[in-house]
Every structure is written in C-alpha cells, then in structure tokens.
C-alpha cells in the first residue's frame, strides 16, 4: 500500500511501487490529462508537479513519491471556475494545435512561474526545452508564458533590428 496526495486528495494505492507514477495517474486514478509520449523523460508530455517541482512521471516510480504532494493538469486551476493564469494565456494566445503535449507544457511553465515571476528568454529556454511540441507552437508558448507573467514581449522586428545594430 502506497499513499500519495494528488490534487489535494490523499490516495492509497495497491500497486507495484515500481510502477511509474504516469500509469498510476492514468489507470488507477483515471486522471488522463497527463500524457504518455516517450517513456524515457525525453518529451515532457507526462510532466506533473511533486511538491511544486516539475518532474517526468513516466520515469518516476510510485515508491519515489510516497507521501508526497502531486499536482496534475486537472489540479492546476485554483478552482473549478478560476483558471490558472497560464491556462487563460494559453487560450488568449491560441497556443494548442493538436493539444497532446499541452498538459506537460503548462505544468512545466507553471513550475517555472512559481519560482521565477519574471522569466527571461534564457529562463524560459531552460525550463521549457524538456517539453517537445511536434506541432511546433514554441513561439506561442513563449508569448503566453510572458503574457501570464506580465513580462514585456519580444518584438521580432525590433529584435532583428537590435541584432543588426549589435553585429553591424
């Protein structure tokens, strides 16, 4: 018997403790918002929070998170009628295409903003480069993170100009 707390609710599980957390969430707890993408911590689709930090649940055995606080995409919004600021920004910027990676993207972004209220482009690269989006919506994800954080947006035309000036 392993006990974990998921989205604020304590769960006691009769599962092989070597089972990756991803499959416990999806099969035993039927929280299917967290996705399977690679099984080897390469794509980030399975990202959830353990005590607020982003981890890849596909390579994290249940035993490793016994007694810990886990948050999944289903628990990201503060309440049912109040989305997380990132969820709102994701809609405003029309981020998702197929949407399959977006639970993981949002969980990685939320962990970033929880410890860094105004991330730089470098901070966003570091926090988000573990999450693949095969639809390629990186520009929109970057914009939505900055918008949720209230960080100044990067204007591509100005950026190009700045680069010219720096190099020229």
């Amino acid at each position, binding site marked *: 018997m392993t006990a974990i707390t998921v989205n604020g609710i304590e769960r006691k599980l009769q599962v*092989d403790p070597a*089972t*990756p957390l991803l*499959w416990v969430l999806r*099969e035993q707890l*039927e*929280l299917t*918002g*967290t*996705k*399977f*993408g*690679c*099984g*080897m911590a*390469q*794509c980030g*689709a399975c990202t959830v929070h353990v005590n607020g930090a982003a981890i890849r649940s596909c390579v994290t055995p249940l035993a490793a998170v016994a007694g810990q606080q886990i948050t*999944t*995409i*289903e628990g990201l*919004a503060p309440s049912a009628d109040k*989305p997380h600021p990132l*969820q709102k920004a*994701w*809609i405003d910027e*029309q*981020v*998702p*295409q*197929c*949407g*399959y*990676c*977006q*639970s993981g993207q*949002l969980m990685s972004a939320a962990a970033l903003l929880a410890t860094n209220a105004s991330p730089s482009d470098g901070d*966003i*690269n*570091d926090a*988000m*480069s*573990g*999450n*693949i*989006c*095969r*639809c*390629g919506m*990186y*520009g*929109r*994800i970057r914009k939505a993170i900055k918008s949720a954080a209230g960080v100044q947006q*990067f204007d*591509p035309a100005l*950026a*190009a100009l700045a*680069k*010219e000036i720096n*190099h020229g």
Partner: protein
Amino acid sequence: MGKWTRRAFISAGVIAGGGLIVGVAIRPGKRTAELSKHVAGDGETLLHTWLKLDTNNVVTAIIPHAEMGQGAGTALAQMLADELDADWDLVKFEEAPALGGFANYPMGEAILLAGAEFPNFVLPTVEGALIRTAQALDLQITGGSLSVRTTGAYGMRVAGAAVKEMLKAAAAAAWKVPIDQISAKDSQLFHEASGRIQPFSFFAEAAGQMTPPVSPTLKAVDEFKIMGRHVERHDLPSKVDGTALFALDVRLPDMLYATVNRAPTFGGGIANIDEARTRTIEGVIDVVKLPSVEVSSMFGGFTYAESVAVVAKGYWSAKQGMDALSIEWRNTANDGISSDTIFAQFDQDISSAFEREADVVRGDVATAMVNADKVIEADYRVPFLAHTCMEPLNATAMVTNGHCEVWVGCQSPLSFRRSVADALGFDIENVTLHNCFMGGGFGRKSRPDYAIQAAQLAASLGRPVQLIWTREEDVRQDFYRPAVQSRFRAALSSNGDITAWENTYVDKHEPYEAPLIPYSIGAQDIGHVRSPTHIPFGAWRSVSHSQQGFFTESFIDEVAVAAGQDPYQYRVERLQHLPRELAVLKKAAKEAQWHIPLAAGRGRGISLQSSFGSVVAEVVEVTVNNGNLSVDRVVAVIDAGFAISPDGMRAQIESGIIYGLSAAVHGEITIKNGAVAESNFHDYPSVRMSEAPLIETHIINSGEPMGGAGEPGTPPIASALTNAIYNATGERIRQLPIKNAGFNV
C-alpha cells in the same frame, strides 16, 4: 426532399422537434460497387456536409474531417456561418461519424487532380474519372491541406447559403411579403418595412418543407463578415485543462492494456516466441500472436506483418512483459540492407537512367549543355523520416456479439472502419468507429494497422483492450517519408543566364508537380527513375514537396551563386510570367529586409515553393559561430487565395516551419540490417524551445482560388535554411540532416 444542381445535391428535411437539417452532396454519378457499400439504396446520396438548425436557434455544422491540431473545424464552421448570416455565438460543430454518408467526395476530386483548380464545366468529366478511381477508395480523409478549400468551398458555404435562402422564402411566405424584402443578420430574419423580426429557428420547420435552391448565391469577398475574421478555436478550452479526449484517454469497464512488437526488419516475421518469463510477470494476462493482414487503401494494397502482443491489467505490466519476451525473428532477404546500400542503389539507378521517365521536357537541353559557358552539377540526398506524432499510436476496441467498437484518432475513419471489418471478417455495419482528437497525424494516422491490432486483440480476449505502442515501436514501424537522391545539371551562358535545367531523381511520388520549377528556363528535362526499397513509405506532411522543395530551391540558389548574382534577384528575373509567385517572393524579401547586409558570421537564405494550391516564400536568418548554428528568424509569406481564419493560418505556417526544421536539422532514420536503427526522441530528436526561431507570418489575400495551409509551410524551410548557411559560411549542404555536416545546433 431534394434537388440536383449541376454539381451538387442539396437535400433538406425536418428533424424531431421542428428543426431543420440540410445536406449537400456532391453528385456521385454512376454508383460503383465500392461506393454502394456506403450508399444502400437509390434514394440515398453521398451527403457531404450537414447543417442542423435546432429549435433553440443553434446551428450545428457537421464536419467530415478529423481534428489533428489544424483547427479545420473552426474554419469550416466560419464558412458556413458567414454564408448563413448566423450569429457566431450560436454556432457549434461536431465531427461527422464514420458513415458512408460523409464520404469526402470533393476531396477525391482534388486528389485526383493533384490539387489543381478546375472550372465548373470540367466537373462532369472529373466526376467520371473520379468514380473509376473511387472504386478502391474510402474517402473520408483529412490530409492534402484540403479541408477548407474543398469541403469548405464546395460544401459548407453552399449549405449555409442554401439554408439562408430557404429561411428567407419561408419568412416571405409567412409574412406575405416579397422575398427580396427579407434580410438576414445574426441568426435572425428581418422585414424592415413592417419592423418584423424572428429568429431563424422560427421558420426552420417551414424551410425544411421547401425545395432547396438550385444554385444559392454565395457572398463576394467584400460581403464576408465571419470569414477572414479572427475567431477563437472551439477545441482549445479542453486542451488546456486535460479534458480533451484522445483515444489514449478512453476508459471502459473491465478494460485490459496491451503493447505490440513486429519484426524490426521489414518483411520479417516471427520464428519462435518463448513467453515463459513474460508469464511470470505480475499482471500479465496473455501473449497473443496477431496474424498478418492485407489491406487495400488509397495508397494501394499493403500487407501488415504479423505481430506479437502482451496483454495485461495495466500498460506497465504489458511493457514489462514485452521486455521479458524472447522473440526469434525470421531471417529475410532484406537483412543485409542499410542506408549505405540504399543510397548506392539510388546513385547507380540515376547514373544508369534505366527506363527514365520524364515529368517535363521542354526545349533542347542537350544542345544547351554543349553550348554552355559553364555547366553546374550537384547531387542532393535526404534520408528516410518518421512522423513521431506526440501521441504514440494507440487504439481501444471492444467486441461483443459480433459487433466491434473502436476508439481511435485517425485521418481516414471510413477506411479504418472498413479495414477493421475486413480484418475481423465482419460486415462494415458491424463496426462502429469513434474518432477521437488526434495527438498529431502528419500522414501516419492514415494507416490503419494499429486499429486493426486493437480489434484483433479485443476479439481474441473477449474483453475491451487498449493497445498502446511504445515510442520505440512507433519510430520503428512507421510509413516513412522516402529517402531520395536527386541529380542536377544546369547550363549557364557567359552572362550568367541559365539556359538549361536537367534533373533526375529516384521514385515518383505524389503530388506530380512537386519537382517542377516555376522559373522561366527555356530548356528543361525533369524526370525520374525507379529505385524501390523494402522500406514502407507513406504520406509525410507535404508529401514529395518537402524533399523536392529542398532540392530544387537549393540548386537554383547554387546556380545564382555560380552566375555571380543575388539569389533573390536571380529568382525575381525568372518569375516575371508568374505575378502571384513574384508578389509572394517580393513581400518575403521586403519583410525580411533582404537588402540590408548582415554582419560576418550571419547569413540569409530564401526559398519559394507552391504546394496544395498555395504559394509560400520563406527567408531564414542564421548565425554560425565556431560551428554553432543558431536559426534566428524565419519570415514567411503565404498566398492561399483568402485566409478564412488568419490566426489559424499563421499557426499552421509556424507549425509547418518547425516540423520541417526538425527534419532539416535533426531528422534521420537510418537503416541497419534491414531495420530502423533509431528508437525514441533521444536518437530521433525534434526541435525544442531553445532552438526555435522567431517566426513572422504574413498573409496575402490575392483572391486566387483557395489553397491549403497545413502543409505549404513545410516545403521551403530546409532550402531557405541551407541557403542561409551557405550565405553565412560558404558551405553548401546537399545532404540532410544538417547535423551531419558538422554543425552544432
């Protein structure tokens, strides 16, 4: 009640509760045996688009395309709602069920014509030809960047306009006023002189009794209210809170989980299985050998090799059980084949030019070569590529009392349904297919092998089974973008003019026009030789355009450089006969500030490619510093005629660019011992956040016939990038991926 028009059959009827339902069918003509399977009786037609108007004044557009991220549903609903003059807030849409009524007939026409636009008077001929082609097809396909320009243009708009005319006629009759005094706006009908107003739904029942108009009047562009406007996609709220239902998320009572393995060497099979260790693993229920299945499809017949599945109480147990399985694969004739032997074969077949077939012959290439001041030669190569959709292949099936239900995300629900029925030996009526959101498609999910395997397992176990492929199986059992070699020769005169273009590549794939060039070059000889391999191939985002766009737009760049001229200007001078292409290219150069020189170590490259009815130019800017390559910025311009959903179109172009960039920089499927060497994202990488360039997309609404958006962003990116690298470094990359050329990305 219905009526034939020249190209369509519009039918109308009343649904329970007094709502209205309207269908638009594209004329099926002579019914073939294959089509008859979907259309039972003479009175039935191939309904292509449905519109429902219910008693709450809500319009539902029923859309025969699957959602794989492209947002087609939203754009199609915009087209219907605009012609109807509906209130956008009262418009819903749902995906059509996998029933023959939704066979995608206009798409068949467009496929047949390889995306060519055609005038109305040709339609009867086209239909005649299509019916012959359609004998082997099940046409409810999402692909070919066709949803908006076929279903939208020929179905949704016609349905919306027809319904509006019927509602107006019903109001005119009820109010006893001439129909031209009735106007429609925001899902309401008005008679201005008397001040009467009623919602559409008030007249739905009366309209449903009417004979639909023969040819409803469509709006001119300047009358568009919803088309061309930014609207939010309907499917996104569920994609940010985890509630969107992908096939992987289906949960059925008593469901088991499974994973599969097929012989890694294509053409191979199972010699022996030792399942003793697997049987000891906690949770494992069964080890099942699944027989090979032959399936006919629009890509021709294909035999899916036998596979072995481990079924368990959970996916993790199934995976552990598979890892513990000892499988001996049969030896095959393909065991000695590698990427090296395949490219050596390509090289030899191009050199021998055995049974070379021409795509285009114009002018006298041989004489031009003899008279040339300079002849430029180059060989280009691209490797096989996998699709790696974010969602690994999976399907869930349940078989009870001779009926099979399948939950799957797929691009071709009708052909999947048929394939599952054939594999189980069921009548098609005894298969129900639930198409879920697709976590990516890119062409892979037009192949039904994974749905068949799930159905075979459910039939074998007598319980619902969710089959989940490992990522490793997904990478190693794909239908790959074909590897291609392409050889060029160009003749240059003393003033740098190109007088002849000669090109031979291996293996012709769709679409036909992919290797053709837009430039005015007097002598051209473009052709192909056959050089088949044992590697299964299939549609990969933009099909042949992604390889041919790299080849032709790299080589014209080489020619310009050899002529000592600016690659942009060189193209401009040879596009004077194509104003649409010229306008796109010029806008890309302007927006990218082509005329401003870059600092040392930086470079700019340009590429132009027309595909799927759209014209796209891209300019890439790179920085190369001690072999470290940074792709800084991409400026893209698309002319797709008219952008129904401008933000959706921009998103598609961004997506196509990143997808093509992953392929250009990293993408390589290597063949060793007849099998794929790569297995997961660590050795088959994708572009990540830190590598992604800034992308600016500019849209030209030229008013030309509508083109696609899902694919045309991909073809120009590889050549724009390698042209930029040449501009920065003087190094010409003729073989992809770029990582093999010694650049760190």
